[in-house]
C-alpha cells in the first residue's frame, strides 16, 4: 500500500463554508435602468414611434444558508418592476438561482440545482465568438450587465440545471494526483407524447503526473432517455477527447506543449445511416520569456467537417431571433436585423441553454470561428502573443488564424480564412504612479473570407473590421469619465448554407455586405463603493449596413448597479 490515497484535506478545506460563522446571509444584487432613445431612418418612416422611454428596477434577493461547515444552500428570487409599473402591473417574480452544494465525507464535492460548469474547449465550454474585442468604458458596463443576466463568466462556464460532483486522489510517488469530475444536466423534459427526455452528462479524469506533465480524458454525451415518451428514435451525441500539457520550466523561460484531440459521433438509434462522426486535433507550442513579460504560442488545428459537440458549439446568441429594441422600422415596418452593436445593447438576446441543433450565425460578425475554437470544418495554423510589463502599464494580446475549410460547401473549392485580433490596454495611472485610474483600451478584429472559383456563383470575398477604443479617466476620487468609439465595417459577399432540422445543408442563400456601423458614447460613473455605482451614458449610433435603409439613434441611459 505504498500508493496510499491522500484524501484532500487541503482541497476540502477550501470548500468549508461559513468561515465567518454566519449561518444565514443575504446575497444578491440590484439594478435600475432608465433609458430614453430617439430613432430616425433614411427611408421614409411616419409609422415608427421615434422616441421611446423605458426602464426597470430589479432586485435579486438571495438567502444563503450554511446549516453546517460543509453545506451551502442558496435560493435567489428576482423581483422586477418595469418603469412605470406598480401594484402588480409590470411586476414579475422569478426564481433566479437555486442550489445546494457541499462536501460529503470530506472527500466528495457536490452541487445540485444550478451549476456553472465547463470541461474542455471541445467538450463543454461557453465560447464567446461574437463579441470580438475587449471592452472598457461605457461598453464594459453593458457587457457586465449581459454577462450577469445570462450567468456568463470569464471562466467560460454554462449555467445548467442538474448535478455535479468531483473529488481527487493524491499519490506519494509516480503520479501526483488524479481528479475526477462528473455532471448531469437536463436539456429538455419529455412532453409525455413524442418528445423524449433529453439529458447531457459527462465528466473527465485528469492525471497530473508532475508539474511537468498532465493529461485528461474528457467525455460528454447528449442522450435521449428511451421510454420517456412514445418515440423509439433516441438521439445521441458522444464526444471523447484527450487534453494534455507538457511543460519545461526554467528560470528565464518556460516551454510547453498543450492541446486537445478527440472525436465525436452523432446519430439517432433508428437512423444509423444518418450517423455523423469525425475527429479533431488542436495542439500548440508555448514559449514564455519571463523577464520580457512575453508569451508566444503557435498552433495547429484540424476540426473535421462532421465534428459535433453541442456543449462546445452552442452559441450565446441565436441569430434567428428578432430585436427587442426598435424591432421594426420604415413605413413598410420591415424587421430591423440584429446589428453588431445590438449585441452590447440588449441582454435579452442572449441565452443560457445548450442547443442540440447547429445554431445560426452572422458571417459579418464572425465567419472564421463562429462556434469558437470548436468550430467544425476548420483547419490551419494560428499564433499569438501576450505582453505585460512588470508595472502592468501595457497589457497586449495578439492572435492570428490562417485557416481553411476541410470540406467544401456546395463545391470542391474551399474557403480560406484570415483572422487578426488584438487588444491593448494602457494603464497610465501605473505609468504616472497616480492613485486615480486612467485607462485607454484599443481593440481590433479583422477577418477575411475568400473562395476562388472559375464560376462566379461560387466566389466568396468577405472582409469585416471591428475597432474599439475605450477610455476610463478617474477625474476626481470615485468619479470616472467614460468614453467609447466603436466602429464596424463589412464589405463583400458570402454564400450561407440553409440547413434542415437535423443540420444537413439543403440549399444556400447569398449575403451581400457593404456598409458600416459606428457608435460614439460617453458618460460618467460614480462609485459609491467597490460594488455599487451610478453611471450616466449618452450614445449616438449610426448603421448603414444597408445603405437604402440606414438608420441612427441616440440614447441616454442611467444605470444604478449594486452587488451585495
Amino acid at each position: 500500500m505504498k500508493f496510499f490515497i491522500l484524501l484532500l484535506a487541503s482541497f476540502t478545506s477550501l470548500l468549508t463554508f461559513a468561515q465567518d460563522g454566519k449561518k444565514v446571509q443575504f446575497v444578491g444584487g440590484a439594478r435600475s435602468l432608465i433609458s430614453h432613445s430617439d430613432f430616425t431612418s433614411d427611408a421614409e418612416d411616419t409609422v415608427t414611434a421615434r422616441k421611446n422611454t423605458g426602464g426597470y428596477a430589479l432586485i435579486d434577493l438571495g438567502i444563503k444558508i450554511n446549516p453546517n461547515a460543509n453545506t451551502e444552500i442558496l435560493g435567489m428570487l428576482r423581483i422586477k418592476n418595469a418603469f412605470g409599473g406598480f401594484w402588480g402591473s409590470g411586476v414579475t417574480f422569478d426564481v433566479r438561482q437555486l442550489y445546494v452544494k457541499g462536501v460529503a465525507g470530506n472527500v466528495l464535492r457536490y452541487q445540485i440545482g444550478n451549476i456553472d460548469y465547463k470541461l474542455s474547449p471541445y467538450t463543454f465550454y461557453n465560447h464567446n465568438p461574437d463579441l470580438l474585442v475587449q471592452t472598457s468604458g461605457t461598453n464594459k458596463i453593458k457587457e457586465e450587465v449581459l454577462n450577469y443576466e445570462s450567468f456568463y463568466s470569464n471562466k467560460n462556464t454554462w449555467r445548467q440545471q442538474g448535478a455535479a460532483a468531483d473529488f481527487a486522489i493524491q499519490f506519494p510517488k509516480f503520479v501526483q494526483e488524479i481528479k475526477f469530475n462528473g455532471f448531469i444536466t437536463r436539456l429538455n423534459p419529455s412532453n409525455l407524447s413524442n418528445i423524449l427526455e433529453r439529458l447531457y452528462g459527462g465528466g473527465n479524469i485528469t492525471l497530473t503526473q508532475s508539474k511537468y506533465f498532465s493529461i485528461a480524458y474528457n467525455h460528454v454525451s447528449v442522450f435521449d432517455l428511451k421510454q420517456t415518451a412514445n418515440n423509439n428514435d433516441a438521439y445521441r451525441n458522444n464526444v471523447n477527447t484527450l487534453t494534455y500539457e507538457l511543460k519545461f520550466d526554467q528560470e528565464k523561460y518556460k516551454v510547453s506543449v498543450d492541446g486537445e484531440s478527440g472525436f465525436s459521433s452523432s446519430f439517432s438509434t433508428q437512423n444509423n445511416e444518418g450517423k455523423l462522426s469525425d475527429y479533431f486535433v488542436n495542439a500548440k507550442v508555448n514559449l514564455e520569456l519571463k523577464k520580457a513579460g512575453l508569451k508566444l504560442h503557435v498552433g495547429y488545428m484540424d476540426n473535421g467537417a462532421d465534428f459535433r459537440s453541442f456543449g462546445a458549439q452552442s452559441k450565446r446568441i441565436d441569430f434567428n431571433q428578432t430585436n427587442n429594441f426598435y424591432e421594426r422600422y420604415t413605413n413598410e415596418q420591415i424587421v430591423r436585423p440584429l446589428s453588431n452593436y445590438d449585441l452590447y445593447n440588449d441582454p435579452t438576446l442572449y441565452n443560457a441553454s445548450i442547443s442540440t441543433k447547429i445554431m445560426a450565425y452572422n458571417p459579418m460578425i464572425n465567419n472564421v470561428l463562429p462556434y469558437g475554437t470548436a468550430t467544425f470544418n476548420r483547419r490551419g495554423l494560428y499564433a499569438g502573443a501576450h505582453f505585460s510589463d512588470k508595472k502592468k502599464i501595457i497589457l497586449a494580446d495578439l492572435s492570428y488564424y490562417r485557416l481553411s475549410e476541410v470540406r467544401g460547401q456546395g463545391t470542391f473549392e474551399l474557403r480560406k480564412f484570415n483572422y487578426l485580433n488584438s487588444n491593448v490596454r494602457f494603464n497610465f495611472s501605473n505609468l504616472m504612479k497616480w492613485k486615480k485610474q486612467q485607462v485607454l483600451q484599443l481593440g481590433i478584429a479583422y477577418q477575411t473570407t475568400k473562395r476562388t472559383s472559375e464560376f462566379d456563383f461560387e466566389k466568396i470575398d468577405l472582409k469585416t473590421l471591428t475597432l474599439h477604443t475605450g477610455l476610463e479617466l478617474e477625474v476626481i476620487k470615485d468619479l470616472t469619465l467614460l468614453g467609447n468609439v466603436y466602429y464596424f465595417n463589412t464589405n463583400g459577399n458570402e454564400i450561407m448554407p440553409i440547413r434542415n432540422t437535423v443540420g444537413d445543408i439543403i440549399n444556400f442563400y447569398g449575403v451581400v455586405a457593404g456598409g458600416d456601423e459606428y457608435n460614439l458614447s460617453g458618460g460618467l460613473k460614480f462609485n459609491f463603493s467597490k460594488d455599487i455605482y451610478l453611471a450616466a451614458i449618452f450614445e449616438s449610433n449610426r448603421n448603414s449596413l444597408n445603405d437604402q435603409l440606414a438608420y441612427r439613434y441616440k440614447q441616454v441611459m442611467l444605470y444604478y448597479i449594486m452587488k451585495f
Partner: protein
Amino acid sequence: MKKALTFIGIVAVLVACRKKELDKIDGPSLQDLNGQFSVITSLASSKDSVDFSASETVFFTAEFSKTIAWKLDIIGLTSGAVKTIEGTGNALTESVSLWAGSTTSLPLFKSENCKVQLTFTGETDTLVDYVKVLQPKTNAGYVVADFEAGFNSGWTYFIQSGADMDFQVKSDITAPQGNAYYNLAGTVDWDWLIGLVNFKATAGGNPTFPLNSNPNNVYFNVMVWGDGSLTNSLVLFQFEEDENGDGTFTAASEDQYAVEIPVNWSGWKLISLKYSDIPCLVNGQPAAPNGDGVHNSNKIKQVNMLHLANPSSGYAKAKLDYIIFTENGPLNP
C-alpha cells in the same frame, strides 16, 4: 526536451492521418443549383390506381438537370381535396414523394381520379400525371360522429325556435369527409345559444368513450366550416367526465372541460386539440374544475356541441363533420 519532441511528433502523425476530403462536398452542388434547368425524366407514378384503405401507397418519380425547389400537388377531381408535397432536390424519389392518402387541405380524398401536378420555383415547366384512388384512407381513432348514417338516435339536441333555423344532417358534395355533415344555422336574438347537440358515449354502446387514460396522448379532432363573411359563430365543445363511474355526470362534483372556437375563417378547417390542453371554462373564462382536476380522458361520458352567437349579431352559420378522437397525435387526415 526529447519528451516534448516525441509528443509533437505524435501530434504531427495524428494530423497527417486525416483523410483528404477533396471528393466530398457539404450540401447540394452550387453548379447544380445555378445551372440550366431541364427535365431529364418526366413525372410518373408508381401505380395507376391505389387502395389506401388496404394500406397501399403510391409514389412519384421524375429527374431534373439541377437541384431545384419543387412542389407536387395531388388534386382530387371530384372532391377538390389537395395533397401538397414540397422539397428541394434534383429528383423525385419514393423517399420524398410517397403518398399514403392523406390530404393537406380539406376535404378528404374520396374514391376518385386525381390530377398530379409538379411545378418548380422560378421555372415555367409543369409536369402532369394522373392516379386513381380506389378507396380513401381510413383513419385510426374513435369516431364520435361523421353523420354518414344521419342523426344517431342516441344523441340528444336542443334547437332554439329562432328565425331561419337549419340544424340538420345534410348530404352533398361539399362534405369534407364522406358525403354528409351537420349544418348549424339560425338567428336567435334573445340568447347566445342557437342550438346544441349532446354526443353521448352510450350512442356507440359504451358507458364512456373508449379512450386512452393518458390525456397527453388523446387528441380531439373536428372539422368546422366557416362562412367567411359571417364570423359571429362560436362553437363550444364541452367534455363531461364521469369520474366516479356512477353512470352520470354531476356538474357540482365532476370535471367538465371546454373549448370555445370562434369560427372566423372561410371553408372547412380541421381543429385538433390535445385533451390535456383543454381548460375548464365558466362563462368563457378559465376556471378551476369542480372534480378531481385531472383530465381523465378515459372517463369522458359525453361531448356537448353548442352553437353560439352574440344575439345582436344576427344570422349565424357553421357546419360540422368528422368528430374523432385520435391517440398519440392529432388527426392526419
